C-alpha cells in the first residue's frame, strides 16, 4: 500500500517511515504542511498519516484543503495536543481516525489496516463468514457449524467488528472506540474480559479456535491458525 507521512518531528518521522516500510508499505514523507498538501493532491495514496501541529500549514487546514479539493484519501491524525476536544476538531475537519501521541506502533498499524480496508469498495454485506462461523446481519443471529450461538447485543457488535476485520489485528482501544464508542482508558482490562466471554461462546467445544490473542497488540479473528 502507498502511504503519505506528514510529520515535522524528524526522529518520529524516520521511525514511522521505517516501521511502515518494514510492514511492506510504500512510503512518501513530508516535513511541513505545504509539501504535505502538494504531495497529497498530486499522487494517489491509500492512506495519509498527518500530524496535527505542522509548520507552514497545520494538520487541520491541510485536511480541510484536501477535502475541499475533492481528495478522499483516508486520513489518520496524530496529535500531541490535549485530547478533550481535539479529537472532535480533527474528525470535523475531515480526518477519518485520530491517534493521540505517544502511540504504540502496533496500534498505528492496526488502525491503518482498518482505514484502508474500509476504503475498498464492497457490496453491502448482509452476511459475514469466518471459517464455519456465520453472522447474519439482518436477523442478528450467529451460527457456528449450524449450531445457533446465543449472543447479547453488545457481543454481537463485538463479533461483527472482529469479523469485518477478519485477518487483521484489532487493538483493545479500537474495540473500545468502535464497539462501545468510548475514548478513555478504562484502567482494568475490561475488553479482555468481554473477549474471553465471547471466545467461550464461539470457540468452546470446537477443535479449531477462531478468536486469537495477538501478544502485545490485541486480537484477531481468522480461520487458519
Amino acid at each position, binding site marked *: 500500500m502507498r502511504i503519505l507521512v506528514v510529520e515535522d*518531528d524528524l*526522529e*518520529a518521522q524516520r*521511525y514511522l517511515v*521505517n*516501521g511502515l516500510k518494514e510492514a511492506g508499505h510504500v512510503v512518501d514523507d513530508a516535513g511541513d504542511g505545504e509539501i504535505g498538501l502538494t504531495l497529497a493532491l498530486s499522487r494517489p495514496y491509500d492512506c495519509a498519516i498527518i500530524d496535527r*501541529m505542522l509548520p507552514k500549514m497545520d494538520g487541520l487546514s491541510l485536511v480541510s484543503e484536501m477535502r475541499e479539493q475533492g481528495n478522499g484519501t483516508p486520513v489518520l491524525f496524530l496529535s*500531541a*495536543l*490535549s*485530547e*478533550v*476536544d481535539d479529537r*472532535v476538531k480533527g474528525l470535523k475537519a475531515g480526518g477519518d481516525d485520530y491517534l*493521540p*501521541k*505517544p*502511540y*504504540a*506502533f502496533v496500534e498505528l498499524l492496526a488502525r491503518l489496516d482498518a482505514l484502508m480496508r474500509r476504503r475498498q469498495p464492497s457490496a453491502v454485506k448482509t452476511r459475514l463468514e469466518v471459517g464455519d462461523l456465520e453472522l447474519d446481519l439482518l436477523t442478528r443471529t450467529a451460527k457456528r457449524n449450524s449450531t445457533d450461538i446465543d449472543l447479547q447485543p*453488545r457481543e454481537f457488535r463485538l463479533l461483527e467488528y472482529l469479523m469485518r476485520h477478519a485477518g487483521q489485528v484489532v487493538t483493545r482501544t479500537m474495540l473500545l472506540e468502535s464497539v*462501545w464508542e*468510548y*475514548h*478513555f*482508558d*478504562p*484502567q*482494568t482490562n*475490561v475488553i479482555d*474480559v*468481554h473477549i474471553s*466471554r465471547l471466545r467461550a461462546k464461539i470457540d468452546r467445544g470446537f477443535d479449531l479456535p477462531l478468536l486469537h490473542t495477538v501478544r*502485545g497488540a490485541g486480537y484477531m479473528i481468522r480461520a487458519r491458525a
Partner: protein
Amino acid sequence: MRALKLLRTQAFRIVLVYLVLFAISVATVVAFTYWNTKRALDAQTDQIIEAESTGLSEQYQRQGLQGLTDVIVSRSSRGGPGLYLLTDHMGQVIAGNLDGWPKVKAHDGDLVEFNYVRRNGEQNEQRRARGRSFALAGGFDLLVARDVHERYETEHLFSRTLPWSIGLMVLLGLVGGALVSRNILARLDTINRTSRDIVAGNLSRRVPVTKAGDEFDELAKNLNRMLDRIERLMKGMREVTDSVAHDLRSPLNRLRNRLEGALNRADRESEQSHSIELAVEETDAIIATFNALLLIAEAEAGVAREAMTLTDLGAVVEGVVELYSPVAEEKSLVLSLDAKTGILLQGNQNLLSQALANLIDNAIKYTPVGGTVRVSLEETADNVELSVSDTGAGIPAEARARVIDRFVRLEPSRNTPGTGLGLSLVAAVARLHDASFELSDNGPGLKAVIRFPRGRARMPSVK
C-alpha cells in the same frame, strides 16, 4: 412567578421596611399635633367656664338667687356658645337655656362633656358641650357650659379619616416600591443572565453598560474587567496545557518508539527483551499518569466546558455498567443497576463516562469476592444523584477527604494497579458539571455520590 420574584427583591424589602417606619412616624406626628391642638382649645374653653363660674358664684353671694337668675336669663338669651342651667333642690329648672340636666358622656377632671339639643329654626340639632356643675348654698345646682361642637366634629372626622389616609399612603408606597424594584430587578437580571451564560461556557459574553453611568454601570464595568481577565487566564491555561502536552508527549513518543524498535531487534524470550518490555510498560504508566493529570487540569480549568452537549445521563450510566458487568461477574460480584431513564443534562459525555468508570472500577477492585456493587441514578427534590456503593472495606471517615487529593492511595504498598488519580479525576469532572462529589459510609463499604444540581438537568415532559 414574576410578581413573587419582585416581592423577594432586596429593593422591595427596603421599600417595605421604610414604608412601615414612615407610616408609624406620620401617624405619631399627626396624633401628637391633634392631641396638642385639642388640649389648647379645651384649655381656652375651660378658662372661660372657670371665669364665668367664679363670676356667677360671686353674683349669687352678693345679690342672692334673684340676682343670679337675672344674669343667667340675660346671658342665655344672647344665643352665644354659653350654656347655663340653674335648678333647685327638687331638680326644677329655675333659669337657663338647657331643658334639664343632660346625660354625661365623658369626664375630664372637674369638667364633663355632654350632648344637648339646640333649636335651630324648625330643626332640632344635637350638639356637643363641655361644662362644669357645682352646688350653691341653699340646695341650688348650677351648670356652666360652652358649646364645643365644632371641635368635636373635627375630632370625629379626624379619627374616621386617619386610618384611610394611612392605608392610602401604604398602598401608594407599595406601588412606588414595586416600580422602583422592578427597575432595579431588570438591571440585575441582565447581569445575572450574562453571568449564567458565561458560567455555561460562553466566555466571550459581556455585561451591557448603559449610558446612565450609575452604580450598576460601575458594577457592569468592573465585572467586564474581571471577565476579560478570566478569559485571558483561560486562554493562557489552554495554551499552557497544549504546550505542556506537546512538549512532553513528543519526547515520550520518541522514547516509546525507540523502545519498541529495540524490542523488535532483540531476541524474543531473551533477558534483554524482557527488560525492554518492562521499560515499555513503565513508559505506558508514565503516559497514563500524565494523561490523567492533564485531563484533571483541563476539567478544573473548565476548558472542557466548550465541548459540552445535551447528554442522556441514564444512557451513560447504563453503558458503563454494561461495560463493567463481565468484570464484576469474573470476581463473583453482583453489579446492580437502578437508573432512572431520560435524565438529560448539559455535559461532557466522555468525561462523565470516564468518571463513572473510575468509580465502578474502584468499587470492583476493593470489594471482596461475593460482594455487591450498586450503581444508582435517582432524582431528589433538588438534585440528580449518581451513586456507586459497594460492600468492601470502605474508607475510614478521616481519610475520605484525603483520597480525593491527587496521588493518594490508602494501602501503603501501592500494589494495586492504577495511577492514584482516579478519584481526583472524578472530583474534577464533578466540579466541571457544577456537581458535588462526596464519599460516605455504606455500612459496610463505601458510597460515592455525585450530586448534580437539578437546574442543570432537564427532565423530559411526562407523557
